[in-house]
């Protein structure tokens, strides 16, 4: 079963009408993944015996019997979870992340875990212990990252929707590179309990799907308070599908000049075209400035790496995961297990974080970054006083070639220029396909005030209805 021309509604109808059983759907999905993945390597673990939940209620649960892909940093009871790291090569969780419990309650089917950059640190899915994922639009290109496996699985039609996580753009950048929709909800909208921690003040689980509505359906299920995560808001969760199908007349749309200046040529044109469509439909377009944009990359890398260096202390080779052989004392177990278990990029981030937090460097680096973060938040607050959404490109360029940037960390970090502000400010942000640039997909980014995913969905759905990008088939999937 290939999902290129399916969505949650179409599958739900087929299941309700008895046109296909959920058992057969699970089997057909796994069979197609096995075949398609020879080309794209989007999965780390595929459950060959995947089965639907029992007593499926298709009328009550939209997701009943529908296979959803899960990024491999979200823990799944009894299904190996590696975060694409050697250090967790055999880790078998004994409980479910909250988002998994919620999907189980909604009777979704689980078929496996998707590839990613190790511990979600990367923008290309090349930093995976389990090999790089290939972009379904051009197999020689990266799918972006870190949720590159989830994005490629959706874009290639292996599944209809996937969970990803976004610390600095890890849902939106791969969504843009693969020509699909992806949303990072507000920080505090979705529980992080059971998400393998990277940067705890930035991490957020979100959804990726070909169609905007499918992400709204999945977000409806996974959002909301959780006794295990005290950072989740107790605000009421609206029905996100209720924001679809609306017009954008009178909507106040801010376009940061720093974002438009970051793109040129075809990329600029394809983004400008989406803005023009909004304008023609009656939206009010305001040019604005995000003056600290040039500082977001260093701010983010200090904050995220500092949090990571602290979060990744737990990998010591004692209670779970990889333990080095031939060690002579306890300290040696820690040092050797970590040095052999972590990949290069993860080590770089731990080192940067330890440095930024160390005596003598703290004020100049960590504290400074935390202060600049305040200024970045203020830039957004000011814009949202007079605007409903902020739009612009998701990335400066479309997908780059596999191997092209992997040896140059700074070049790789700059990929996140346009996405990381949303994480620093904790606001919701999504990427919806805008069109093709040199034959590769380009993403249109939409951000809104905290807890206003509604306006993000409203604009994304309007853009989707207008450009109908979903009608295109990824060029790398044609034989």
């Amino acid at each position, binding site marked *: 079963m290939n999902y290129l021309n399916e969505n949650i509604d179409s599958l739900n109808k087929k299941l309700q009408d008895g046109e296909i059983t959920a058992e057969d759907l699970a089997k057909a999905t796994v069979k197609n993944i096995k075949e398609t993945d020879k080309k794209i390597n989007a999965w780390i673990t595929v459950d060959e015996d995947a089965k639907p939940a029992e007593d499926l209620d298709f009328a009550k649960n939209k997701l009943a019997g529908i296979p959803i892909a899960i990024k491999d940093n979200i823990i799944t009871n009894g299904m190996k979870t590696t975060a694409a790291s050697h250090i967790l090569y055999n880790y078998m969780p004994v409980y479910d992340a909250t988002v998994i419990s919620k999907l189980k309650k909604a009777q979704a089917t689980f078929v496996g875990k998707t590839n990613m950059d190790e511990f979600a640190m990367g923008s290309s899915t090349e930093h995976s212990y389990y090999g790089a994922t290939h972009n379904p639009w051009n197999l020689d290109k990266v799918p972006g990252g870190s949720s590159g496996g989830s994005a490629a699985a959706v874009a290639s039609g292996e599944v209809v929707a996937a969970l990803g996580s976004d610390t600095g753009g890890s849902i939106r950048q791969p969504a843009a590179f693969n020509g699909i929709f992806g949303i990072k909800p507000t920080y505090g909208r979705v529980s992080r309990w059971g998400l393998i921690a990277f940067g705890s003040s930035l991490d957020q689980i979100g959804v990726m799907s070909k169609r905007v509505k499918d992400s709204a359906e999945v977000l409806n299920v996974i959002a909301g308070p959780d006794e295990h995560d*005290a*950072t989740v808001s107790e605000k009421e969760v609206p029905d996100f599908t209720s924001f679809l199908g609306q017009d954008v007349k009178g909507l106040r749309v801010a376009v940061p000049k720093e974002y438009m200046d970051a793109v040129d040529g075809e990329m600029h044109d394809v983004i400008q075209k989406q803005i023009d469509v909004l304008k023609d439909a009656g939206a009010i377009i305001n040019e604005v400035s995000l003056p600290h944009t040039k500082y977001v990359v260093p*701010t983010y890398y*200090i904050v995220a790496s500092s949090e990571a260096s602290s979060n990744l202390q737990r990998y010591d080779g004692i209670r779970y995961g*990889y333990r080095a052989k031939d060690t*002579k004392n306890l300290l040696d177990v820690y040092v050797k297990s970590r040095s052999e278990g972590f990949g290069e990029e993860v080590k770089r981030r731990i080192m940067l974080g330890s440095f930024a937090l160390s005596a003598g460097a703290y004020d100049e680096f960590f504290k*400074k970054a935390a*202060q600049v*973060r305040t200024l970045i938040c203020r830039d957004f607050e000011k814009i949202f006083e007079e605007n409903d959404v902020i739009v612009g490109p998701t990335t400066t360029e479309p997908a780059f070639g596999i191997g092209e940037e992997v040896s140059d960390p700074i070049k790789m970090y700059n990929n996140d220029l346009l996405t990381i502000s949303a994480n620093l400010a904790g606001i919701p942000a999504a990427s919806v396909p805008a069109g093709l640039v040199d034959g590769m997909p380009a993403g249109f980014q939409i951000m809104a005030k905290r807890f206003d995913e509604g306006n993000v969905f409203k604009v994304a759905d309007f853009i989707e209805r207008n450009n109908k990008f979903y009608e295109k088939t990824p060029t790398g999937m044609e034989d």
Partner: protein
Amino acid sequence: MKITKDEINHVAALSRLEFGEDEIDKFTEQMGDIINMAHQLAEVDTEGVPETVQVVDRETDFREDKPEHWESRAELMKNVPEKADGFIKVPVIIDKDDNE
């Protein structure tokens, strides 16, 4: 800002990581570049600006520190790399060589 090999070795020790001689030179150079990029923030005026370390919309939620019963000890021990008699096995704290 110049980052030296000694500084990298110090940070590696703090991070419980070690690098081979061949790796350390490349790492020192890369870390130097990254730290220099981070150092750009020095030019931002942050006089009197408070720090943002979290973006949460609610107060810290205190709960009772109450242990809960977990059904299966064996299940909890499932991922332990080395164990004996239901305990986690770790090597000696001082060197094995000194101990023998």
